[in-house]
């Protein structure tokens, strides 16, 4: 028997009320028999009104005030690898601003001769420099944090929605540091600092700073959105997103790490023995099935295209395997192109639901050969209180009634 659904789903059924056909076809709608809206009615367009369910949302009770909080990307409704900028997850520590870019400055300096030519740049000057455009994911170190011990949230928006992927445009930090005459031998770390109230500061080791870190103004073809650091932010590919400092105003080059508030009070991973792992930057290889996912109900039995995302802070995705029996057997998924370093990779997988309970999982493998772990493997080493860097295999239970639930199975 077909699983009859509530609002909106009836039309999906194979059987029709009237034998001559469906009204949706036989009665030509207004848009087929009338004149629509003019071009440029909206000089800057917005999604369809029918899509308004897909919004960034806070997780109730996760944080106490909304200016030091997070809003999650609705991954359950997204396709491909580009996250629409309007749905990019947000993490602010002291609220977001829409800064006048003509007054924004970036200062680069460093004592003891580590920077020979300290400099101040306007946006005009920065945007004249040789630029790169690259697709990279950003993932908060605390993504999937709520799931270390138990299932705590219902949907992939809340389990994995602190990650997004965009095409970033900007100048390589290495280009700027070289312009400023960095002492490449003695410099060991840079401090990145934001211009917002929190003046967010993060230590970045020089190996990364001179590698693929971008001082970015562009996001998905246009300027950064205010919520994402307009007019200037750092992009530290593959590293927890807190390092990708927004509203970037200052880079200081030094010889020791800074141990800032978000390096010794937060973004530290508590081990069972009471020690905290500090400077845990890399976002290890991870994947998640977004369709179907928790909080959804399948409309019917039969074929489904299981779809999801995989990414690795260490390189490219080499393969994604999918299991529909809770991890007993796995088959490789199809990977969509492009497959880029430190970027989302979209995978798809054929599945026929026979109406019986099923447990869906995905498992990513990256170019270093690393295989995404199970939650119990992570817990065996790190316990359940380390908050950050939960890259465990995610399990979704499909029940007989078609409901998909967040579960832990290993």
């Amino acid at each position, binding site marked *: 028997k077909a699983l009859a659904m509530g609002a909106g789903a009836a039309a999906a059924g194979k059987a029709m009320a009237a034998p001559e056909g469906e009204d949706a076809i036989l009665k030509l709608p207004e848009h087929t028999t009338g004149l629509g809206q003019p071009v440029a009615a909206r000089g800057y367009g917005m999604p369809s009104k029918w899509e308004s*369910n897909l919004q960034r949302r806070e997780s109730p009770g996760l944080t106490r005030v909304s200016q030091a909080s997070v809003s999650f990307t609705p991954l359950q409704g997204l396709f491909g690898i580009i996250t629409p900028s309007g749905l990019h997850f947000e993490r602010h520590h002291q609220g977001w601003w829409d800064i006048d870019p003509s007054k924004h400055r970036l200062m680069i300096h460093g004592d003891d001769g580590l920077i020979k*030519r300290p400099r*101040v740049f306007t946006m005009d000057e920065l945007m004249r420099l040789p630029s790169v455009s690259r697709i990279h994911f950003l993932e908060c170190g605390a993504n999937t944090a709520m799931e270390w011990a138990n299932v705590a949230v219902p949907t992939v928006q809340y389990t994995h929605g602190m990650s997004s992927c965009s095409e970033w445009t900007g100048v390589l930090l290495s280009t700027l540091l070289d312009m400023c005459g960095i002492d490449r031998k003695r410099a060991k770390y840079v401090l990145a600092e934001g211009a917002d109230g929190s003046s967010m500061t993060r230590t970045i080791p020089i*190996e990364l700073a001179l590698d693929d870190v971008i001082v970015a103004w562009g996001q998905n073809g246009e300027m950064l959105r205010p919520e994402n650091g307009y007019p200037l932010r750092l992009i530290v590919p593959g590293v927890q997103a807190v390092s990708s400092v927004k509203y970037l105003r200052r880079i200081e080059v030094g010889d020791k790490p800074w141990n800032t508030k978000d390096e*010794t009070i937060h973004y530290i991973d508590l081990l069972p023995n009471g020690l905290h792992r500090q400077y845990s930057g890399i976002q290890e290889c991870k994947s998640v099935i977004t369709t179907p996912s928790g909080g959804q109900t399948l409309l019917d039995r039969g074929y489904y295209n299981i779809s999801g995302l995989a990414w690795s802070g260490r390189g490219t995705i080499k393969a994604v*395997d999918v299991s529909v029996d809770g991890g007993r057997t796995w088959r490789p998924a199809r990977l969509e192109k492009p497959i880029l370093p430190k970027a989302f990779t979209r995978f798809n997988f054929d599945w026929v639901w026979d109406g019986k309970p099923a447990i869906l999982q995905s*498992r990513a493998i990256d170019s270093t050969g690393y295989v995404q772990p199970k939650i119990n*493997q992570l817990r*065996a080493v790190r316990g359940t209180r380390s908050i950050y860097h939960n890259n465990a295999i995610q399990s979704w239970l499909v029940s007989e009634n078609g409901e998909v639930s967040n579960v832990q199975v290993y």
Partner: protein
Amino acid sequence: NPAGDKPWANMGRAPTPAEIKAWDIDVRPDFKGLPKGSGSVKHGEEVWIAKCASCHGEFGESNEVFTPIVGGTTKKDIETGRVANLHVDKYFPQRTTLMKVSTVSTLWDYINRAMPWNAPKSLSVEDVYGVVAYILHLGDIVPEDFVLSDQNIAEVQKRMPNRNGMTTDHGLWLPNYAFSGKPDVKNTRCMNNCPVEGDIKSMLPENMRDAHGNLFEQQRLIGPMRGWDTTKPPRK
């Protein structure tokens, strides 16, 4: 390239000393960047009551606006530099700021740059020394009559309860990035007859079904699935 190797090299201008001073506010664990000055616990208490307590509680204990700043540390911790309550066996419910922070410079730096939350960078140097002293006093790290200063702060560092509580010996520490970066947890790519325990270890409690609002309204209205209508019980 006829225009020379790096023809963009001269873009920008040198900052003035005053400009660097205005922005170069960071304070490192070795106290590089710390301004000269001092502040007493008493002065700090006044600032705290006036400008901090409304959010963090009179004794830094509040969980309302943010997690507690004070609590959970002991005299023993001050000796060992390891907060015992962080051990998994202690079942200590919440991790306070003082339980985690390893360097006193961090408190100075952060309060100076970001607090009070709604008026960051409004405190005087004395105010910052004072409130840091007050917080340390609430954690019994310094006595009630203490005056924290650039002269004695290195001594105070030696009493920070969690000063030995950090490790960078792991595969995610960034300097290892280019070199080893060895992951601590490994899975294998088993494809068939893979070992699993198999049963459902955890799932969302029934009473949390609607804790995130009506999920029907958080999912697309078309496509292969709909959202759960959490105003109703699960379908049969």
